[in-house]
């Protein structure tokens, strides 16, 4: 097969690439926009903060366990209940950015199965599972 024919064969992969790239792009964009908006609201004090910014210099030099104890901050998914506060609202955008590979991975599973490519369908499903497991917090913290 010459290189150009092979380049045409690579067109078969275009669906998976297009789907993955598009979903990744929109997820990333939503994450960045949300992050910028929430951080602006946080630093300008438009949203009340759980830990006021002026208190942070006393706390950010501490190990995380001590920081949580002294600031009474929640760990795990506890921040979600405080997402209306300026500092924790940023974690919504961060969580979106960290999760934005998940939809493209899940979208590829049926596509690979349709192409009878079971190995890659399993790899995508496993990668999605690893991300979900990490996100769930069940691995302990």
């Amino acid at each position, binding site marked *: 097969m010459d*290189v150009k024919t092979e380049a045409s064969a*690579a067109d078969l992969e275009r669906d998976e690439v*297009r789907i993955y790239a598009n979903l990744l*792009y929109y997820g990333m964009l939503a994450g960045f926009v949300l992050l910028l908006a929430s951080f602006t609201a946080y630093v300008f004090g438009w949203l009340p903060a759980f830990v006021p910014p002026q208190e942070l210099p006393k706390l950010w030099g501490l190990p*995380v366990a001590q920081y949580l104890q002294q600031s009474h901050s929640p760990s795990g998914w506890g921040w979600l209940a405080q997402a209306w506060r300026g*500092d924790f609202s940023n974690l919504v955008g961060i969580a979106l950015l*960290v999760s934005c590979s998940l939809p493209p991975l899940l979208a590829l599973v049926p596509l690979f199965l349709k192409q009878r490519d079971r190995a890659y369908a399993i790899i995508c499903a496993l990668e999605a599972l*690893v991300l979900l497991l990490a996100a769930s917090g069940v691995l302990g913290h």
Partner: protein
Amino acid sequence: MNPSTQRRLALALPLLLLAAAPAHAAEAAQAVSTLPWWFWPLALFVTCFLIGIVAVPAGIGGGTLFVPIVGGFFPFHLDFVRGAGLLVALASALAAGPMLLRSGLANLRLALPLALLASISSIAGAMLGLALPADAMQIALGVIVLAIVALMLVTKKAEHPEVARPDPLAAALGIHGVFFDGASGQFARWQVHRTPLALFLFLLIGLIGGLFGIGAGWANVPVLNMVMGAPLKVAAGTSGLILSLSSASASWYYINSGATLPMIAVPSVIGMILGARIGAHLLHVLKSSHIRKMVIVLLAFAGLRAILKGTGLWM
């Protein structure tokens, strides 16, 4: 190199050090709280902006520079710096990912099996990193940064490595491709070998990435290029895709542990992305080899600083 480029280059290093120096000087000042709180996120933004500018021409991920520099010269605990470092590496990889995929420079079939193992081990690295004492982590960080410096000095790169035939695993997974090389104006076919060895190496790379919160471009690209035989451009593009998955899983562990402090993470991510965009434009203006040498010196300095901080010789 023309005089204007030399002037820019001469400005870059002092600027980067200037961004770090006040932070270090202010470490003592922090004890007496003379600086307003907003100084630190602002200094972080400027530092990350400058790191972003030099990281692209130097061919190194911003996260690799971020953790030793911010961990060594800013007053934040290393737990928060590592959490932010992973996000910086992730955001940089995500920002470039879709474009690299569409252009064929990042390959999904090459990335996915390697990213799966790197993702699993990066969570293990994150768990280990948050369990170890900070001083030990500082020393280990310094050692790994100096090892990266050594790797940058000795690693060779090949534009189009010769791969006689793919290994059985690569053949079974269909890891091969064709990409359009803009420099030569031609289509180039590629295939890979030594996939089992690369899978093992990516387990180690993921572990180190999660442990220290540093991106892994410094290790991904040599393994993809020199071990597996992927063309340099495909290796660099695919490295980002792998990083977008492996950093994400480790980041979740840091988020769930409370080690992601928005006041540290967000200015870093924004500064790095803006700087990297300028760095990408400067690729054509600056001489990469000079920037690379400058970054090696900076990394060596930051690595030594981490060891001295960890041993208590230079607080």
